[in-house]
């Protein structure tokens, strides 16, 4: 049944008022009612906005997790992530063992004057080094000050909200399953 038939069949549904005069009066009534109600405006600098926890305000860096793999930098649509790193050789831990090489992060910077807040870098990071923080008050008088180096990016880390709780009866996270697995026992020698 269409709406048209419905309104014809049901006399209690009032047809929308039409014509010039009812329309003009309706406009006056609506504006007067709105003026009588308190407005919904939140006066921002005096009252903080209620942001959803997943707001994309600024990108925080957890430096320990970064392996300088450059994935974020390469995926960035406007190339605003700068990474410098060098390789460090670690001595062998056991006698006669092989020396290991490790990436050391020298510079990690995001230029927020270029960033378009797409969040691809956060999505693509395989080691959870980048996180969204809802903080947004980092406007600068000089555009070059919007280039946040790794110390500044690290300072945003405490403002990152906790991950959302799992749904009830959902599967256990992989990490916990792995940690709870009994240690592998050495198989007995075959007879």
């Amino acid at each position, binding site marked *: 049944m269409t709406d048209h038939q419905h309104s014809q069949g049901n006399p209690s549904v009032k047809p929308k008022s039409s014509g010039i005069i009812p329309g003009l009066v309706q406009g*006056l009534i609506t*504006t007067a009612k*709105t003026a009588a109600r308190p*407005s919904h*405006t939140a006066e921002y600098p005096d009252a903080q906005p209620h942001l959803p926890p997943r707001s994309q305000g600024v990108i925080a860096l957890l430096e320990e997790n970064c392996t300088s793999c450059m994935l974020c930098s390469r995926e960035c649509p406007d190339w605003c992530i700068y990474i410098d790193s060098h390789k460090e050789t670690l001595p062998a831990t056991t006698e006669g063992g092989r020396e290991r090489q490790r990436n050391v992060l020298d510079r990690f910077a995001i230029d927020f004057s270029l960033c378009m807040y797409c969040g691809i870098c956060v999505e693509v990071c395989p080691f959870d080094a980048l996180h969204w923080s809802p903080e947004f008050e980092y406007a600068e008088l000089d555009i070059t000050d919007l280039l946040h180096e790794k110390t500044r990016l690290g300072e945003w880390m405490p403002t990152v909200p906790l991950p959302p709780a799992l749904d009830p009866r959902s599967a256990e996270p992989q990490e916990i399953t792995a940690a709870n697995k009994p240690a592998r026992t050495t198989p007995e020698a075959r007879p």
Partner: protein
Amino acid sequence: MNPALELALRLVILVVAFIVVALVVGQTEHKVMAHMQGRLGPMYAGGFHGWAQLLADAVKFLQKEDLTPRDADRWVFRVAPAVALAPYLVVCAVIPLSPTLVAADVGAGALFILAAGSVGILGVLMAGWSSANKYSLLGGMRAAAQLLSYELPMVLAVASVALAAGTVSLTGIVDAWNPLWLLWQLPGAIVFLIAAIAELKRTPFDMPVAEPEIVMGPLTEYTGLRFAFFMLSEYAGIVVMSLLFSVLFLGGWHGPFSDALGPVWTLLKSAFISVVIIWLRVAWPRLREDQLQRLAWLVLVPLALAQLALTAVWVVLSSQ
């Protein structure tokens, strides 16, 4: 008192009161319009609910560069804002707030305000013509057409009141007023209010300055203080039209304790009309150019003529 001194004193008081009241109406429009749209409006300038917003705007306008387009008719372009503002000041001078409180008491006040008020059209037309801009020209032409067609019903409505009072003096009209006028001059009052809003080029009659179509019409090329003058003349126009409406149709200073509170009653009635004018702006959409002309010639002029005939019949019958 020395007549020259008294003249200067009256002039200074008039200009200060004129600008202050115009700014108060402007601020009222900011706040009323905001609350009708579910906003707060200015809240910071001056501290208490942004009372000094328009003063802050004035300071900003002062700092702007005073640009004149290269191809503009320079002299006309520069004079136009003053031509738009001054007639309202002149009209303001002859409107009585009470039998004694008037800057300049003119015998034929009703004629004087109609004559002086229509000079304001020239300012807009000059601005539109001299700007050397197609939007300004279109806006100026629209303004001229609109102001000319709404001048007629306005004159007829005022004529009806003058006929009923038997005088063209504004003080005389208010003295002849009695509450019955609210009823039998009602069509004339409605015609006058609509024509007044159209004269002010305010929504729903803001076709000449329709921003989505022709940017800002005749004001497109104006910057800084000259633009501010045009805005001030709009608010001053609201003041003048509200005062006129309350004097012509609402009985000016008539009211309880009118001996002591006469000017307060006039101002209260005018304030009410100002808020109504602001309210209509918020609530109603803009009329198209042809609808606008149709309303003037097919509705308002016949209505005003009918009111004039009714008044004439009444006056003749009651005088017998």
